[in-house]
């Protein structure tokens, strides 16, 4: 294991290039700093620390934007006009001079941090044309003597001029360039970024690789947790049965509330806030609940239940037989078995009679599938959203494309619909049957659907 150390990285760039946005997305923290499209939003140097494991720490410092780079380059040359002066010495001379405290105080903060760092991430808004002021910034960075990785931001925008920027940077002798859109997140871009950081900071290469592994594991964990959250909500909604005439029993309100809670949970899972999603109202259709006595799955469950009750009764009878030293010749076992099955059947019948005449509303299969599709798509969008994004995601009102493995998902939803006691939202408390098994099966199916969506 290498000696633990702190790696300092300064995030530098022109004002409004997305430096704070880069940190928000890399840190998965939408509350870091302040993001706006106005210039000079960040006016101080703010740092945060990432634990890379094995005691290695990575300090990422957000700096105020460079605004007047042409003036700054002139000021640097004026600070130490000697043609033999090194770039770093010239920067230091500028920082010690009066301009660093007055006209160029904002740029001085960024340069001071650059000199104190092991690596600079130079952020570029790829939607911008390659202007002279940016070329001056390249020159200043190149003269600092610090390793520098150029991060092309907003590359997913149709206005991005990524190729032109790469060409200009290569022309200026800067070859460490990577694309990373802070609004439209791409895991592959993030992987490349950290790999390049590792290459530029050889001492941190192994730990950067570990960070990448950890990020991958986190992504997988988040996806599985998302599948579980969706599965729980689907069982709650699909199983919910509300007596139509019962006072205060509103199926639509309860289902909508549950779907909204699911959206909030998914947003929290991906470290977003409720305002990141403009959840539209769920288009709901409800159906009067009817029991098909010849439904194959229902008959299978009924048979299993009666068989289990008979077995339990028989086991109890066997104990009685044993108490008589088996002089009863197994009669108690037979009677117990018959009684077990009989009690099960009679209790079902009594329940049906007690509920006789009451109509129930339940969401239909299409609505349950719609909730599943919308939630899966929300996860897909959240996993591709950068934490710097400012525009809220819009909820889908129409979803035509089925999910991968939707038939199997629908089968589990139909299973849940037969067990009103499985819903946390309803009045039924019947814990009969195996809700956990249904949730588990649904989670696995939804996870597969999510993998398909995320990789597709």
């Amino acid at each position, binding site marked *: 294991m290498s000696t633990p150390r702190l790696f300092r990285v300064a995030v530098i760039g022109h004002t409004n290039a997305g430096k704070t946005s880069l940190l928000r997305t890399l840190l998965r923290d939408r509350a870091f700093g302040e993001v706006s499209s106005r210039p000079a939003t960040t006016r101080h140097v703010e740092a945060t620390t990432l634990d890379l494991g094995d005691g290695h720490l990575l300090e990422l410092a957000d700096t105020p934007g460079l605004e007047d780079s042409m003036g700054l380059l002139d000021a640097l040359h004026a600070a130490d006009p000697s043609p033999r002066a090194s770039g770093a010495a010239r920067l230091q001379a500028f920082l010690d001079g009066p301009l660093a405290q007055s006209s160029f105080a904002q740029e001085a903060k960024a340069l001071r941090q650059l000199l104190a760092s092991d690596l600079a991430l130079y952020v570029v808004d790829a939607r911008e044309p390659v202007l002279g002021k940016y070329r001056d910034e390249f020159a200043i960075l190149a003269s600092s003597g610090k390793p520098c990785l150029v991060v092309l931001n907003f590359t997913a925008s149709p206005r991005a001029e990524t190729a032109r920027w790469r060409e200009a940077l290569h022309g200026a002798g800067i070859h460490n360039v990577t694309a990373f859109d802070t609004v439209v997140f791409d895991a592959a871009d993030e992987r490349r970024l950290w790999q390049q950081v590792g290459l530029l900071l050889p001492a941190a290469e192994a730990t950067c690789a570990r960070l990448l592994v950890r990020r991958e594991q986190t992504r997988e964990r988040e996806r599985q947790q998302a599948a579980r959250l969706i599965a729980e909500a689907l069982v709650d909604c699909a199983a919910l049965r509300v007596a139509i005439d019962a006072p205060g029993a509103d199926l639509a309100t309860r289902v909508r509330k549950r779907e909204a809670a699911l959206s909030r949970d998914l947003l929290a899972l991906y470290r977003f806030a409720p305002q990141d999603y403009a959840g539209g109202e769920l288009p709901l259709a409800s159906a009067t609940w009817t029991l098909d006595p010849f439904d194959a799955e229902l008959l299978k469950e009924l048979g299993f239940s009666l068989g289990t009750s008979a077995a339990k009764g028989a086991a109890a009878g066997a104990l009685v037989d*044993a108490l008589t030293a088996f002089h009863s010749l197994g009669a108690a076992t037979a009677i117990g078995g018959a009684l077990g099955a009989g009690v099960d059947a009679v209790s079902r019948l009594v329940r049906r009679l007690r509920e006789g005449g009451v109509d129930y509303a339940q969401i239909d299969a299409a609505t349950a599938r719609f909730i599943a599709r919308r939630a899966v798509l929300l996860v897909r969008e959240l996993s591709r959203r950068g934490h710097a994004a400012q525009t809220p995601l819009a909820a889908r009102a129409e979803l035509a494309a089925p999910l991968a493995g939707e038939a199997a998902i629908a089968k589990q939803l139909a299973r849940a619909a037969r067990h009103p006691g499985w819903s946390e939202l309803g009045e039924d*408390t019947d814990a009969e049957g195996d809700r956990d098994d249904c949730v588990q099966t649904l989670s696995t199916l939804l996870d597969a659907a999510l993998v398909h969506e995320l990789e597709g």
Partner: protein
Amino acid sequence: MRHRPPRSSIRKRVTARPTVPSPWQTLAWRHYEEAQGEALRDPAIEAAAIAAGPDLATRIAARARAFCARESLDEALAAYARHGRQALVIAVVAGTAIGLGTARLIPEAAPARANVMDMLAALLAPNLLALLLWAVLQLAASLRGGGAAGSLLGQTLQQGLERLTRGLRARRDPRARAAQRAWFDYHAGTMAGRARLALLSHAFWLALALGAMLGCWWLLSLRQVDFYWGSTLLGPEAIGRLIEVLARPIAALGLPVPSATDVAASRLDAVANDPALRARWGWFLLGALAVFGVLPRVLALALCGALVRLGDRRYRPDLSQPGFFRLQPLLMPEPMHTRVLDPDEGAGRARPSVAVASLGQPPPAAAWVALERALPAPREALDLGTIVERGDQQRLLATLAQRPAWPALVIHAPLAATPDRGVAQFVASLVAAARCPLWLSIAIEDEDALPAAERAARIEDWRALGEKAGIAPARIVEARA
């Protein structure tokens, strides 16, 4: 509005000893909250829960304890706990009664004779078989990761209670509903819950064994019974060895037990009118009930008691369940690791307010220069091109130094460009160098490129830049494509 209790009372609720098992309380509160659709917030309870321990499970339990007390969920839970105690009493009473009834296997008629092997089988076999079944079920449950309800009796009781409590009370009251759901979760889904149900079953069998022992002792004290054994297949040696093995732990208790000679003398067809032999067989029977009936159940009870305590202490909620998942950000807030390394001395400075939009227009034959992006100039105007590089800036300033006869110079600023200090510096130098009126035209090329609020802010920033550079507010205009 709900009356908010003082902080000290909340701390007391959080740290109070729970009236029902803590995991059960935690599960009940989860069900209650899940039915509400969201986690209830109370900063005082959250702070007290965070102070209760470093790990999330402890904090969740402390929070549930405080909320259960505040929202009267404890009363519903206590009702279930009371039912549990009642079930225990019923199990003990029923076990004792059956045990006493079993003792009636001791024959009454004189001369009374009893087959000792039959007696042992009738008094001990059900108990031992049930114990074996329980152990197998526990093993199966632990192999498949829990889920079995501990014993047949426990499972039957669970389902019986489920059917009984499916009534109206639980339907009407969300607290009772949450308590009931949690009861099932706790007893079917946790090690402590399963052990608790098993306690009920072991208490029943222990009472039965004690009742049988007491009844046998009473009847053997009052009746004279000759014990015998008989076998078609087994000889006296085999039976003697069996009795010897069974008698060894009984003898260790200091009770008299039959010897090999006694076994031989007690064969079905032997006649031995020996009171001491009868007593030895009687004590052997009572000893067998104590060692093979009472003792295993006492041990099982102790084991289950320990499992209950251990399980309750080690209970960790399934944090992937929505109800617990929602609590993570509330109870495990991530500490802010950010720090300011180089503060802004001018913090808090306000952006300058700017005048409202001008409706004027620059003269048609004015000279137009675009900033940073190529923008089309009006047809009659003189198009000076786009300022991209340092050289472009210097060329324009040199041209201005020659005092061209332009009716006006219009700086065409694209809305997409950021009005930074470098641009402001250049505009200010144009204002200083120009001998003709200067206009700033803010070109709004694509209305949808920026959200409305950002668009308005950007226009405001360009206006501020122009005014600060010395351009009259009336000469700052917006031009839409």
